[in-house]
């Protein structure tokens, strides 16, 4: 039997609104929506995506869970998303709680702030993972046992860390060049670890739904449940890991593409095929590992390069995060929770993603999700915010001295 492991990632960042140097020292709310054009406000975007995606997709998932007692799914839900729901769309959060209450929806561990902290500060990274664990316990009453790092950014050190932290598995991209002939349809383990497994995304089958589903240029368009079902491997594979953004449903693939009809049909087909079953990521982690898979360099699930270049590929992006993390010690010791919170919200990886200037079809994807006129604007607003934090820290210092 081959297990379908469907995992969806739910996230919204607190976008920095057009924050000018003339606000530095005066106005410390970098995320204040009132400065942004209406359609780029965090609240408006959340409500729009809720209407297009979260609400109908959760209804679809709940329906499937009620209809098929064996259907299972896993979700990762960021802290920033939950904060936004609490503020602006509590009904969305309730609908997620309803899913988790079925007992067949797993929640995956990650950083609260959807950050790249692992690559800058192990201390801060662990703090954010703990914050996320506490929030998930609070909201859903469950404790995640499988870990994913932001953007599936994974390397051997993360595998090692997750093992020591007691996670049963880590999620990563099943990128051919690093698998060296191994198939992503088996369970592996990172090198030099005791217990942690590695679950690797089957990116072809995942991207058929997440990216290609509505593409009329694609030779396989239109994609039907029957066709997709026939593509699933049917040998001795342990797993088929379908990992994608939750917003695939209704936001990346709009409702009129037929995604909300396709997915339930597909689950019907798979459910009535004895060769397959559904597993959560935690259940998949119980399967025996076939082999070790080393990944020395960091692999992510983004762009053609599958590396961190979409976030850290150009000097603006590097400077931004270096400037932010350089303040870590001072921020954490300033004892002003508002400064600490805002410093953490600036760590969300989306901020540097908006600064990407790669000229490829990937670049278009970035532009589609960016709330700014240009990557340079994203950089300036962000750096002005960092300057304000620095300004506030000096003020704190001055007050302490006097």
């Amino acid at each position, binding site marked *: 039997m081959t297990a379908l492991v469907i995992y969806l990632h739910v996230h919204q960042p607190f976008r920095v609104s057009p924050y000018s140097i003339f606000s530095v020292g005066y106005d410390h709310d970098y995320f204040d929506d009132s400065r942004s054009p209406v359609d780029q406000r965090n609240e408006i975007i959340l409500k729009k995506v809720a209407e297009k995606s979260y609400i109908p997709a959760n209804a679809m998932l709940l329906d499937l869970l009620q209809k098929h007692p064996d259907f299972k799914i896993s979700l990762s839900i960021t802290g920033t998303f939950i904060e936004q729901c609490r503020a602006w769309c509590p009904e969305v959060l309730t609908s997620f709680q309803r899913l988790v209450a079925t007992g067949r929806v797993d929640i995956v561990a990650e950083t609260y702030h959807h950050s790249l902290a692992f690559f800058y500060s192990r201390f801060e990274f662990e703090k954010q993972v703990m914050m996320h664990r506490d929030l998930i316990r609070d909201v859903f009453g469950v404790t995640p046992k499988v870990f994913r790092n932001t953007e599936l950014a994974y390397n051997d050190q993360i595998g090692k860390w997750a093992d020591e932290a007691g996670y049963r598995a880590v999620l990563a991209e099943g990128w051919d060049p690093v698998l060296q002939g191994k198939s992503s349809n088996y369970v592996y383990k990172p090198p030099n670890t005791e217990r942690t497994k590695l679950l690797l995304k089957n990116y072809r089958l995942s991207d058929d739904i997440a990216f290609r589903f509505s593409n009329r240029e694609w030779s396989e368009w239109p994609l039907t449940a029957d066709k997709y079902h026939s593509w699933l491997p049917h040998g001795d594979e342990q797993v088929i890991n379908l990992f994608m953004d939750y917003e695939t449903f209704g936001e990346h693939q709009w409702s009129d593409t037929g995604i909300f009809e396709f997915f339930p049909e597909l689950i019907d087909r798979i459910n009535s095929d004895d060769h397959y079953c559904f597993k959560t990521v935690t259940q998949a982690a119980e399967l025996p590992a076939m082999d070790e898979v080393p990944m020395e360099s960091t692999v992510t699930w983004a762009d053609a390069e599958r590396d961190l270049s979409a976030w850290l590929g150009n*000097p*603006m992006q590097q*400077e931004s995060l270096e400037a932010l993390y350089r303040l870590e010690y001072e921020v954490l010791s300033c004892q002003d929770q508002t400064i600490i919170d805002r410093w953490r919200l600036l760590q969300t990886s989306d901020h540097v993603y908006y600064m990407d200037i790669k000229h490829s079809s990937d670049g278009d994807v970035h532009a589609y999700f960016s709330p700014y006129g240009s990557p340079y604007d994203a950089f300036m607003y962000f750096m002005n915010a960092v300057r304000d934090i620095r300004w506030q820290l000096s003020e704190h210092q001055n007050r302490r001295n006097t």
Partner: protein
Amino acid sequence: MKVLMLGWELPPHNSGGLGVACYQLAEALAGHGAKIDFILPRKHPIHKSITFMNVHGLDNPAELSADAGLPIPKPVSESMFQAGAYDPFSSDIIIEHEAYTKQTLKFVNNQNYDVMHAHDWLTLGAAMEIKKLHNLPLIAHVHATEFDRAGGSTGHPLIHEIEQNGLLMADLVVAVSHRTKQHINEAYGIPLDKIVVMHNSIDLNDFTSYVDGGSYRYIQQRREEGYLIVTTMGRLTTQKGLEYFLRAAAKASQRLDKFVFVVGGDGELRNELLMQSAQLGIASQVVFTGFVRGKKWRDLYKESDIFVMSSVSEPFGLTALEAAAHDSALILTNQSGVSEVLDHALRYDFWDEDRLADQLINLASSQSLTPLLKKSAYEELRGLSWDSVARYCMDRYAHLTSGVSEVKV
């Protein structure tokens, strides 16, 4: 393809981007086989070295065998030219226009051309007369409208009339940007499908051999001390939006004493701008170079870190491309046509002083931003060439002369 090209200036005899654009376009067209007669009000000795086309100056009736009884453009001495005292857009412009029209008409008699390409309103009077008499297909190339030159005020009514009539009569109108195309449509009622956009361009090869430097020791020294050199260049007129630029400069300087602002060029607003910089308390940070040509002009680009195009209304803005070719980071107003061909520039609305100041401060306080903008804009320039502009232009000529023009008047 025999082309009658009507122009007002050519480098080095030019006051701005018009002459450069005409020269580069003509050269690239010649590369595609166009035989060009280029008519100028005045011919400079250096124009004799131009071999890819025939340049005719109307100030030499002997050369033209024109009618000496008609008004003749006044000759310009070399010393006036070098000092910048010669202004091809002088106050006698209406009279000059008249002379140009009559002399050109005389010149064109008995010549055979396939197409006529006229640059800006000054040549449109002649173009219209020639079209009436010889029924030559007319391309009216708009580098700037009278609205742009007036920079927000209404402009000269007679010039508006000549401009509008010329554009109405043209078989095809060429705009140097989408912005200008829109403007021509709205201001003069020219249908959009009669207007095509040909962005100005640049050939990086023209700039690679440049090794001068040393004209501005003071600026160089400040630069070595870590100051950021912020340059703007052009005629000092309302159109260029320099009042806003100076106010932004003052705001940025109040926050961060790390800038030298260089205003290159001369014009009617010079004294006001000098006074304004003093009132703003930044007179010592602002360098007015006056009118510059040749080496001093190139050195100004070379000594700049950041080039600002502050125009209130700029149909294109060739200087921005030249600055990028000299390795400057660019800040452009959203009201500049050049904005349409470059992604890698910072942008602001000409009136938004806070935003420009913000951008300047960010450039000065970031290690990565200025180098990245320079490099990325330079990379973009590699994708531009006058050759591809000329190829498109030849194609338009062919359409007009074959009588199967897609563009019906």
